[in-house]
């Protein structure tokens, strides 16, 4: 294993992260300097900064072809990490935009600074190639997210949310750390790409146990069953923009490390953990969808829906093929766009109704037809209807797993696709029930319009356009996802 020497090109590879730190410092500084009346603009500064960083990253930080291990093997500069990092910066930007007028977080400099540092941590989660780096990145992200979830100090539910998230997160990351220590203890290596070879001399039992322990930590991050218990409460209590952020970026970051570690470190133990992933995926989809049926609160509904969505994304991983991983990456991108759009609408509605109950969405299509339409697009995309991104997302994961099932003659994979397809029907049902409330039911407050500030309109336009773009012209995106996935094997 050779590590790249330090050059200016290596510095360019982490340009987005350097800029993120600078941006966080800038926001904190402006928070001190600016008078109270201008502080709403802090959110715009954060969003514009993240947007700029995204553009600069696309221009300057594209990875070289050789998947270099840089900074002494701490990071891997490949397309997989690049795609995920762009996704995190993008979600950070949208979340900054939709935080602008969200009660309790609007105009708080430290809120945006913590948000940016969470993005920073996630970026390193996606590119980390070393156990130590990986753990540091996960903790950087997690601590920022615990703070953000409990950010509304006067709100009991938010405090509960932060504490619950912290306790669950601390516990699972300890378990994961134990797995890391086993790996290090038996091999003496910490680099992900050296571990796999070194594990050849280690008793299989140890490999399997450490794989399981590591899975616990990642399972928590992606909210897969049975590590999902925190999700509904945390989602319900956290400030809604943060709920959106946790549901998309944190989940995608969990998948980024999950995919990288499982493929890089445990390829030999595939026959052990792939069946486990298949079972987890089936149970996650089914439980998430079934429990979502009974929800009355939109944030809890989206929490269970996000559990189910994690199940679909796991389907691609279970295929262990380039097409499968590419499908998972595509799925996460489409899910990020879709869920952000859904949560943007939730924030706008709750600003006026002061409620997250689904019943209070009655008459939305009369109060604000355009908002209702954006909600329709987002929910149908979650349900997997064409011509929206969710259709291709589901199609790619199921196609990949069926392909692998046919190729390996593994009926488990076929059954996974069947369970997934049945789940899509359950999912469609509860998404439709919400849309029914939006479009069909009347409310006494129909004359009361729902204002849409320009920042929110911009965020919604970007997400809806992305959903439709991915849903009609999927080919370049799945192409990029395929090249990213190819780097991981």
């Amino acid at each position, binding site marked *: 294993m050779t590590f790249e020497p330090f050059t200016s090109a290596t510095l360019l590879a982490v340009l987005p992260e350097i800029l993120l730190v600078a941006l966080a410092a800038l926001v904190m500084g402006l928070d001190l300097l600016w008078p109270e009346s201008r502080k709403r603009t802090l959110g715009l500064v954060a969003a514009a900064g993240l947007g700029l960083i995204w553009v600069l990253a696309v221009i300057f930080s594209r990875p070289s072809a050789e998947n270099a291990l840089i900074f002494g093997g701490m990071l891997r500069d490949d397309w997989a990490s690049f795609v995920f990092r762009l996704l995190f910066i993008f979600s950070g930007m949208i979340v900054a935009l939709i935080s602008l007028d969200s009660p309790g977080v609007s105009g708080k400099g430290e809120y945006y600074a913590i948000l940016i540092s969470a993005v920073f941590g996630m970026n390193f989660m996606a590119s980390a190639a070393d156990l130590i780096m990986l753990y540091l990145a996960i903790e950087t992200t997690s601590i920022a997210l615990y703070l953000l979830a409990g950010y509304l100090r006067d709100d009991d539910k938010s405090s509960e949310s932060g504490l619950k998230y912290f306790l669950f997160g601390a516990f699972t990351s300890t378990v994961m750390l134990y797995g890391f220590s086993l790996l290090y203890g038996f091999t003496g290596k910490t680099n992900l790409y050296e571990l796999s070879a070194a594990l050849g001399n280690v008793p299989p039992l140890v490999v399997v146990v450490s794989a399981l322990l590591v899975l616990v930590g990642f399972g928590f991050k992606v909210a897969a069953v049975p590590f999902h218990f925190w999700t509904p409460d945390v989602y319900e209590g956290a400030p809604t923009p943060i709920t959106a952020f946790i549901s998309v970026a944190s989940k995608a970051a969990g998948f980024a490390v999950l995919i990288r570690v499982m493929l890089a470190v445990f390829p030999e133990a595939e026959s052990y953990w792939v069946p486990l992933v298949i079972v987890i995926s089936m149970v996650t989809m089914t439980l998430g969808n079934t429990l979502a049926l009974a929800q009355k609160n939109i944030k809890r509904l989206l929490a269970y829906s996000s559990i189910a969505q994690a199940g679909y994304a796991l389907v691609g991983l279970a295929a262990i093929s380039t097409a499968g991983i590419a499908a998972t990456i595509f799925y996460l991108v489409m899910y990020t766009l879709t869920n952000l759009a859904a949560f943007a609408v939730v924030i706008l509605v709750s600003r006026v109704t002061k409620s997250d109950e689904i019943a209070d969405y009655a008459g939305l299509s009369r109060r604000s037809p355009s908002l209702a*339409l954006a909600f*329709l697009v987002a929910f*149908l995309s979650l349900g997997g*209807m064409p011509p929206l991104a969710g259709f*291709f997302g589901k199609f790619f994961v199921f*196609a990949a797993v069926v392909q692998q099932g046919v190729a390996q003659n593994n009926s488990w994979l076929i059954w996974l696709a*069947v369970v997934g397809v049945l789940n899509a*029907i359950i999912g469609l049902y509860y998404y439709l029930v919400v849309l029914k409330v939006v479009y069909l039911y009347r409310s006494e407050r129909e004359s009361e319009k729902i204002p849409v500030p320009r920042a929110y309109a911009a965020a919604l336009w970007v997400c809806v356009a992305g959903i439709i773009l991915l849903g009609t012209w999927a080919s370049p995106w799945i192409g990029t996802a395929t090249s990213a996935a190819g780097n991981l094997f």
Partner: protein
Amino acid sequence: MNFPFLTIITFTPLAAGLLILLFPAERKDEVRVTALAAAVIATALSLFVYFTYNSAAGGYQFIEKYDWVPQFGISYHVGVDGMSLPLVLLTSVVMLTGVLISWGLDDRPREFFAFLFILATGVFGVFVALDLFHLFFFYEIAVFPMYLLIAIWGWAKTREYAAMKLTLYLFIGSVVSLVGALAMYYTSGLNTFDMLRLAEANFSPEFQRLWFPFVFFGFAILGGIFPFHNWSPDGHVAAPTAVSMFHAGVLMKLGAFAALRVGIMLLPEGARFHMPWIVLLTLVNVVYGSFIAMVQKDLKYMIGFSSVSHMGLVAMAFTTLNREGYVGAGLQMFSHGVMTALFFACVGMIYDRAHTRMMPELGGISKKMPWVAVAFIIGGFTSMGMPGLSGFVAELPIFLGVWKAKAVDVSGYPQWLSWLANMAQQPWYFPAIALISAIAIVVTAAYVLRAVQKVFFGEISPEHDHHVGDVTVLDKTALSILVGLMILIGLYPTIMAPLIETGVMPILKLLKVA
């Protein structure tokens, strides 16, 4: 590069729908005019394509093909043949007349027309699809807006139930077919969803026999095949008028058409194997549907079950595997589409003015709405199969086809079904089915005439006498277009039958019976 007629036909409704969404909600007249303009453009282009299609050459014409997702061998691939062209025309006609009779709709017309037109784009997309993925993509687009259209603008009593039932039925059906399609895709090893190439993939007979029922029934659910027809009358009844017209007139054809294109044409061995027992299900459709229609009091339910019965004839025609049957199926799809759109338009007009669809409460409507009465009666005659109208032209070849049909391939039936295989091979099997289904014609005559008598003649109730008025000019235009088409096809079938025959020949070749 030819002028992309089919693409423009497909996307005109979508473009209009999106444009309509950009209008402010209160500009209702602009919305209606835009909708009408789009419908007129689509109809004009469909007519142009219909009359410039070269029947002598046959095959797929107006082909366009672009890469869509090349990694999966998915392309945007459209073209029409003699089977799909009449259905494209039908869709645009129903769209046009649907806009005309929905002119008075006042609750959120912007969203109504937008969803209706998204649906229309889905329907066009399926009829012109030559790529299996393309077909599914547009199939889902066609199915989904139905939910909102029924749930929002439907009949308050049953709309939520009916809309959800319909959506789940159809979604399950499409998912089942999708699994079959993926199986074809991976088994062929061609890495393409191109239906023209999959048709030459030479799937093994075992594979075809296994997957044919999935694909066929998955789509045939939308065609209303027994025992999965249950969603359809509920959906028809709950839907607002223009949507009922689309639903019964066009969407049910979508199911039948996709079952033909994907089920029969890609898995012909499967069709040869399974059709001898599927014909029994379609027989239930035809006869049972007509009896249930007979006992309905609600005019709309009556027409809903009549649709189940008439669409059963289409499916029955598919089981014949011969020229007469398939030509009849093509004609019946068009004829039934026009006829049932007309019926639902009439019922909608009556309900809007009399506020009831219950036959016992109605009577003497012909005095108030003579146009509707005439149109309904002509539609009724079509439904009964009177010569001179399109129903006769369509149903006669179907019965001929069923009479001379033969079970071509029943040797592989499992032991416990050997009695069925034996029976199907008897010379009397198909003629008997033709005779039994002829009962439906008699029953149809009975319920249609009874409805005409109860609704349009007899005493008008004093309340209706007071407030029921005549229909508008736009309504009359819509009715005239539909009635005109039925008479035109009835008197001059040459305008459509030879065209359909050019589409049937390649199918028979695939089925190895030509």
